[in-house]
């Protein structure tokens, strides 16, 4: 049992040759210049270069690669499209196993609303493939045109429409998993109820630390008969937050309920993604209602009235699909629009109880003023899932330090409000320092121990999710010793 990653010296030309014999020479990257592309994920504030990157093209090749790494005791990091926002797919001097070439949809079962996909299938490709059958795949992270289902499974990804439809874990029914040892196991029951431990639910969101999903059986969602998209703008964030609470309290579950603050509106409106959001509004709510046509207009009218009674200046209902798409484009590309504001961008992913939104948003504004950083909020208000973004210049050491402080203060405010440190981006490297804020040493040690059931040598995505010190404590705790011997 090793607590640290195997020495990088084992990654050498001989390893590259052995892996090339499995996947072909073109699919193994070993030169530093080639590996630079894989030094970051969607969060540019981290840079960790892998020692080698290998891109198997078939399930058999993935198994052969992982078995070879197991034989050599080498750690590895699974990676999908690398769009993650927590540094979770970064390989620091170890082997990166890219799964984006496994991009086949293996089967679609329209009768039961199920599909079996390889891990490298791009999220939106699945929805496109099943659209003619009247289905879509509901979890829709903003990166859905690039991110992969395998990555979504690893991160338990969410998205705007998860308010009504649930996150990734609510849509995965079975998995074939390659354990880091090279053993292949089936989790869940694709047809029928599953008794015993919920190993599918345990694997989803394990951030690549429990192994690699070779295929994923997902639940498809029927396309709604009708969709209405509303944009309500407010002269205060507080009023917008009150409207959110009022809507949720009615029992109407919007498909999406998103808040966009003034800083974000202005960034979007001055970019190529301009969506027609009113630039003088303090905040706007993008609200989508969907479902059966009958009764939907009644819900639209209720939501309009609630926005108005909570201080909305105007409420606009998109007249057609083109207007609807434009309103959504502004929201989904807000992150890209902020890229124009500065060379670097950090994004937080905390969750607070919905009723604490006004209070926490006020604290975030105060933190921005005090630390002299520009905070743009664009987030899933219906879930209380905040995404404060801070554009900044990383070459300015003073500004970087203030950004770092602001991020920590925001996270602390959210935790103090009874929230969580991540709603959908995962812990990865980025949230690792905050795990101690919400979990006790015993809880963290339990997570370490659970990981070791799947990956006794901790070779799969080492150093992520649970702080290393928590795992050390687990090993040192006298109460933990006897059963380690059994294992």
């Amino acid at each position, binding site marked *: 049992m090793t607590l640290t990653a195997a020495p990088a010296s084992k990654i050498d030309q001989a390893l590259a040759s052995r892996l090339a014999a499995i996947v072909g020479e073109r699919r193994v990257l070993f030169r530093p210049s080639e590996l630079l592309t894989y030094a970051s994920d969607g969060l540019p504030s981290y840079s960790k270069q892998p020692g080698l990157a290998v891109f198997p093209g078939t399930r058999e090749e993935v198994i052969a690669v992982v078995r070879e790494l197991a034989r050599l005791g080498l750690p590895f990091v699974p990676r999908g499209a690398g769009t993650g926002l927590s540094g979770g797919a970064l390989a620091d001097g170890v082997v990166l196993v890219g799964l984006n070439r496994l991009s086949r949809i293996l089967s679609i*079962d329209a*009768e*039961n609303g199920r599909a079996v996909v390889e891990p490298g299938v791009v999220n939106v490709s699945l929805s496109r493939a099943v659209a003619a059958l009247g289905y879509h795949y509901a979890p829709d992270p903003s990166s859905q045109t690039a991110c992969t289902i395998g990555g979504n499974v690893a*991160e338990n990804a*969410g998205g705007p429409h998860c308010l009504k439809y*649930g996150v990734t874990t609510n849509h995965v029914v079975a998995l074939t998993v390659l354990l880091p040892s090279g053993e292949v196991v089936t989790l869940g*029951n*694709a*047809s*029928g*109820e599953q*008794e*015993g*431990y*919920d*190993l599918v*639910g*345990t694997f989803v969101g*394990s951030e690549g630390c429990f192994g690699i999903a070779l295929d994923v059986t997902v639940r498809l969602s*029927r396309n709604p008969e009708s969709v209405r998209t509303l944009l309500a703008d407010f002269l205060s964030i507080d009023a917008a937050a009150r409207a959110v*609470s009022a809507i*949720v*309290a009615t*029992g109407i579950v919007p498909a999406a309920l998103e808040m966009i603050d003034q800083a974000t509106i202005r960034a979007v409106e001055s970019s190529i993604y301009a969506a027609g959001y009113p630039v003088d509004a303090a905040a706007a709510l993008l609200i989508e209602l969907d*479902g*059966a*046509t009958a*009764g939907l207009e009644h819900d639209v009218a*209720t939501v309009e009235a609630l926005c108005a009674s909570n201080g909305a200046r105007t409420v606009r209902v998109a007249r057609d699909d083109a207007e609807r798409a434009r309103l959504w484009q502004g929201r989904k590309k807000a992150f890209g629009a902020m890229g124009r504001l500065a060379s670097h961008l950090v994004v937080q992913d905390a*969750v*607070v*109880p*919905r009723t604490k939104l006004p209070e926490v948003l006020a604290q975030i504004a105060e933190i921005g003023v005090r630390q002299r950083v520009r905070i743009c909020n664009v987030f899933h208000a219906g*879930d*209380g*899932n905040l995404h404060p973004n801070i554009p900044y210049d990383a070459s300015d050491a003073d500004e970087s330090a203030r950004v770092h402080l602001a991020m920590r203060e925001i996270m602390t405010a959210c935790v103090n409000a*009874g929230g*969580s*440190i*991540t*709603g959908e*981006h995962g812990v990865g490297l980025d949230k690792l320092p905050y*795990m101690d804020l*919400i*979990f006790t040493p*015993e*809880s963290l*040690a*339990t*997570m370490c*121990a*659970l990981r070791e*059931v*799947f990956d006794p040598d901790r070779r799969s995505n080492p150093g992520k999710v649970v702080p290393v010190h928590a795992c050390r404590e687990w090993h040192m705790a006298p*109460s*933990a010793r*006897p*059963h380690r011997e*059994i*294992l």
Partner: protein
Amino acid sequence: MTETLTASVDALRECVLDAGARGVALRVVGRGAWLDAGRGARTTESISTRELAGIIEYVPGDLTLTARAGTTLAEIREATAEHNQRLALDPHGTDDGTLGATVATASAGPLAASFGTPRDLTLGVEFVMGTGAVARGGGRVVKNVAGFDLTRLLTGSWGTLGILTEITVRLHARPEADESFAVSLERPGSAESVRRVLRRLPFTPYACEIVNDTFAAFLGIGHGETALLRLGGNAAAVRAQRTAFAELGVPREIDAAVWTRLRQAEPAGAIVFRMSHSASEIARTWTEANAVAVGCAGTLLHASPTRGVVRCIVPSSDGAAGWLRRAFGAPTMTTRIGERLPVDLWPMVSSAPASDPISSGIKRTFDPKSVLNAGILGEVQ
């Protein structure tokens, strides 16, 4: 069997550590409603969480509620009803059951068709492991991916990994209209036609169950195979939903109390199990279940066509257990899950669902001395 009542997490932890030191296995119990289910736990003493009760935090605006494990579903129903909300779980049995037992067994009833099971509605848990460690998974917010998902792992683990002490659940606001209907199905074997209608509809009913003739009579809603519908939303939506079912027959409005009677339909000593397969196979699963009803007089059947599940309630009789023993020996396409069975039938129905290497590894890690509900999931130690 000696029973220990614990009113605090510390006392519970001490009790678990003490049992481990003495080499004793504990039967983990809420209010004990399912103790006669026949599950083969190898335990000599029991520990109950029923005094570890009470709602800890309920903020209606957040639609979340945190309660101690021994809190009854009835208490949660009353507290949430004041704010026109509910916990959308209607497991079989009464609301005297505890939240802890519901989550530990992942028990769900007809509402699961629309709202999901405890695995979808449980947001966070605190539990005492077999090692005596107290751990938490998840939290009190509706969306959370911090750390490995101990909440999902513990939900439905039947108290074999940890004793749940505190649970946070997601609530739902009650809709403007929530109406129940019965539709008599003209032809036998109508399960498939109901599924086909449901598949075409642009909405999901809150609940849709098909009951056999015997069950319809028991519920007092007429005779013959009958579909029970629970429709919710605004008044216009419910009107349209009702009309959408017209092709199955004429929906008759019925009292919502039918769902309570359905949940509590088990006669004393009944044998209860579920059969499941893909929803598209519901016709075959329903046929297989009807064979049970033919073989065992008085059998009540109800199917959730969208979930592909049929639940069989077989009244106790001299012949029933023997008939089922023979039936369970025959090959089947369906997955059988036991709820309440004679001891000797358990291995034939739920054959060690937690005995695979990963489940066994998890059990050894969380409960190395096998203190908690030993053997209840047929786990290998």
